[in-house]
């Protein structure tokens, strides 16, 4: 036995086992997220479930589980139940329903069952009765209506897009200009000075506002016309239990009959749904639609953070390693820096709120934006403050990694540079930094990995549930660092735990999680590729 331990074999098994266990955990996690997240977009068939009591249900089967039977004697047959997404929230009140399998008489998949994805109230499952244009009936019966609907839907989609563009761009522009002019007037009033010229200036600005308002009203009437057109065409759908529902075709995002689709059609629909998820805006308090603003916010925040944290961390590490006098004080500083990396992130969040937002942001507001006070411009959460807070959170990581890299630069190389008459600065700039670049980038990779996953400090420094505008748009100065933004991590929390319809949002949580992991991987991978290239370039025989 003693020899058995001595041989070291069990130790190899233990170490290998530990690694396998960790890998299995990670693999299981990824598998769960992928299975749940990716399956969400698949247009599965619509089942018509007839129960033994003659009730009929129509919907997609989303889950199947064993019914717990506490206290049942052993040998009792296992019972299962299925979860149906029956949709029609406006009629039934609930999207989901559990059905015990032993209550089911029959399951059919009627070819003509249709699924309507709507802008409001979630999915609708049913059969189309008729389609009307105004009061005129243009199609009746399921088949005929379906053909007409397929023609009409793209048209209404176009109208809807036009409306959105006008609302977002044109109306947004007017509002932006009017607000700007209003602020200009306020600025003039605050400046004071010669009354007559000021009044004249204000008058001219007010005239401009009037012009803009007139243009605005014109657009608004155009918009009203479009809205009327959008709601003109109506569709009447009957549910499985015979109730009829009338709604405008403009309220429909997508209509399809999954039971009548080939695998290829389903795959194409799947891709289009995934694309909508990645590129679209959220609907229904984030539980439906896309998450593009959150992706954009996350990536932009990480980029700003990297731009800030990299030079700061590297400069600090350079001082610590190359210039500072090695001694007790430096050791203490180093310990402090290392410990800083372990401070809970919410602490940094509170600091960001107090220092960046209230102190710095507040000062910027009172100096540069007095005209818009009491509405804060920089004195409230925004992407710049969130990024700076994260930069502060991750700067110790960069410092530690960079210091290690600097310490690993071979003495022979720095001496070679000194021997050629280079000063310390020239040596650091031309030799030491390039050689330690891979280590510096390792620090950045760690910083990015930590920052992308961080949520707590962001919640108090600028992340919101729904940001009306992206931090980058067409209005001067194009990059609006003071704007609040959306973030994938917060999105997961919000959709999963704060939404009114938790059951419907569940798959969305998995899909968002998958995307967040994907983004972390992409960001890291990019940095790793750059690092490896540098490593190849600066690989030195003396390492």
């Amino acid at each position, binding site marked *: 036995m003693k020899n058995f331990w001595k041989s070291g074999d069990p130790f190899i098994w233990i170490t290998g086992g530990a690694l396998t266990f960790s890998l299995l955990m990670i693999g299981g996690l990824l598998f769960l997220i992928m299975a749940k997240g990716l399956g969400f977009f698949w247009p599965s068939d619509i089942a018509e479930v007839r129960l033994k009591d003659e009730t009929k249900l129509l919907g997609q089967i989303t889950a199947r589980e064993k019914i717990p039977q506490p206290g049942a004697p052993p040998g009792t047959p296992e019972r299962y139940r299925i979860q149906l997404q029956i949709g029609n929230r406006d009629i039934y009140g609930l999207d989901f329903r559990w059905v015990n399998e032993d209550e089911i008489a029959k399951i059919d998949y009627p070819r003509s069952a249709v699924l309507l994805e709507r802008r409001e109230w979630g999915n609708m499952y049913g059969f189309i009765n008729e389609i009307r244009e105004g009061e005129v009936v243009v199609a009746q019966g399921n088949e005929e209506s379906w053909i007409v609907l397929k023609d009409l839907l793209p048209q209404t989609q176009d109208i809807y897009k036009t409306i959105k563009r006008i609302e977002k761009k044109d109306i947004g522009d007017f509002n932006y200009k009017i607000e700007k002019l209003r602020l200009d007037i306020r600025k003039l009033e605050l400046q004071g000075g010669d009354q007559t010229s000021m009044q004249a200036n204000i008058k001219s600005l007010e005239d401009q506002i009037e012009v803009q308002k007139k243009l605005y009203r014109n657009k608004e009437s155009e918009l009203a016309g479009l809205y009327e057109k959008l709601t003109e065409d109506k569709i009447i759908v009957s549910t499985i239990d015979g109730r009829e529902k009338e709604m405008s075709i403009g309220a429909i995002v997508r209509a399809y009959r999954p039971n009548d689709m080939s695998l290829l059609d389903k795959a194409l629909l799947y891709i289009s749904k995934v694309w909508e998820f990645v590129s679209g805006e959220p609907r229904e308090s984030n539980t439906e639609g896309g998450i593009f603003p959150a992706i954009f916010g996350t990536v932009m925040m990480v980029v700003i953070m990297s731009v800030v944290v990299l030079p700061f961390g590297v400069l600090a590490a350079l001082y610590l390693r190359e210039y500072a006098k090695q001694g007790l004080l430096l050791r203490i500083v180093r310990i402090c820096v290392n410990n800083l990396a372990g401070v809970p992130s919410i602490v940094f969040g509170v600091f960001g709120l107090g220092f960046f937002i209230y102190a710095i942001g507040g000062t910027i507001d009172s100096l540069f934006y007095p005209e818009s006070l009491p509405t804060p411009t920089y004195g409230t959460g925004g992407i710049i403050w969130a990024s700076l807070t994260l930069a502060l959170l991750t700067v110790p990581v960069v410092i530690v990694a960079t210091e290690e890299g600097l310490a690993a630069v*071979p003495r*022979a*190389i720095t*001496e*070679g*540079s*000194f*021997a*050629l*008459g*280079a*000063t310390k600065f*020239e040596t650091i700039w*031309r*030799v030491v930094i*390039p*050689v330690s670049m891979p280590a510096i980038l390792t620090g950045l990779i760690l910083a990015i990995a930590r920052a992308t996953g961080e949520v707590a400090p962001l919640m108090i420094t600028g992340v919101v549930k729904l940001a009306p505008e992206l931090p980058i748009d067409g209005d001067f100065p194009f990059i609006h660092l003071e704007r609040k933004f959306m973030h994938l991590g917060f999105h997961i929390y919000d959709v999963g735990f704060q939404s009114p319809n938790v059951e419907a949002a569940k798959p969305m949580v998995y899909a968002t999680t998958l995307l967040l992991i994907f983004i972390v991987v992409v960001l890291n991978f990019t940095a790793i590729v750059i690092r490896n290239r540098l490593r190849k*370039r*600066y*690989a*030195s*025989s*003396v390492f």
Partner: protein
Amino acid sequence: MRLPLGKIKIRDDQGYDTIIKTEEFEEKRVGQQVDIPNPIVKIENLTLKYSGTPALIDINMEIPKYKATAFIGPSGCGKSTLIRCLNRLNELIDGVTIEGSIKISGMDIFDPKIDVTELRKRVGMVFQKSNPFPKSIYDNVAYGPRIGGIKSRSLLDEMVEKSLRSAALWDEVKERLNESAIVLSGGQQQRLCIARAIAVEPEVLLMDEPCSALDPIATGKIEDLITELKQNYTIVTVTHNMQQASRVSDYTAFMYLGRLIEYDITEKIFLTPSKKQTEDYVSGKFG
């Protein structure tokens, strides 16, 4: 105090005076045994301590211009330390204290007014282990001139070619100047380091065991190069290899335990050394 006839007072490195017989002194008298024609480096009473421990003790010597001078001696005798004094590279190490003076072309290199980077441009150095920068071959050679402020591409091209030709490396690398220097073989890397050092046109070229990491063929090339280079540069080399010292150098200095034991024309050191220690060392009895 007058000393009795036949006795002499000497001061050892701890600062204690002792009185010994003159004959003993003759035996103990160490250092330069020969008049150096046209000296470029003058070392006077040089003592160097690492955090109080003496590594060089009272070195006095002159190094001739346009000749190759070799330092030999067992490990730890201070020969590397001595040549690293000539470009003040020892100062990078904490706790080094230096007394005495070194003059190169009449300039006192320890003068606080001297710009150390200027000194290092005049006194180039090649290290024991080749240490090319992880840059392209071209950038390696152009490093020194660029530090010196030369930006003109054509001038740099010219200097790079000239230096690589002088280092007998041009024909081997002229097709791939933009490749990384790391891919060169050990001997090529060392010649690249020599090219890099002479690109700044130093007066003195220090070589700290330049061949110790190389195979015999690469060593032969470097030795030929040294013979070639001493036409235009004063070469000071440190070596463990006594055949090498006898092959390439005009003058040889033998050091032992921080002292310069004997310094003379190379043939004399190897054939008729005047000190017992030198004889023991060059004949391989110790070291």
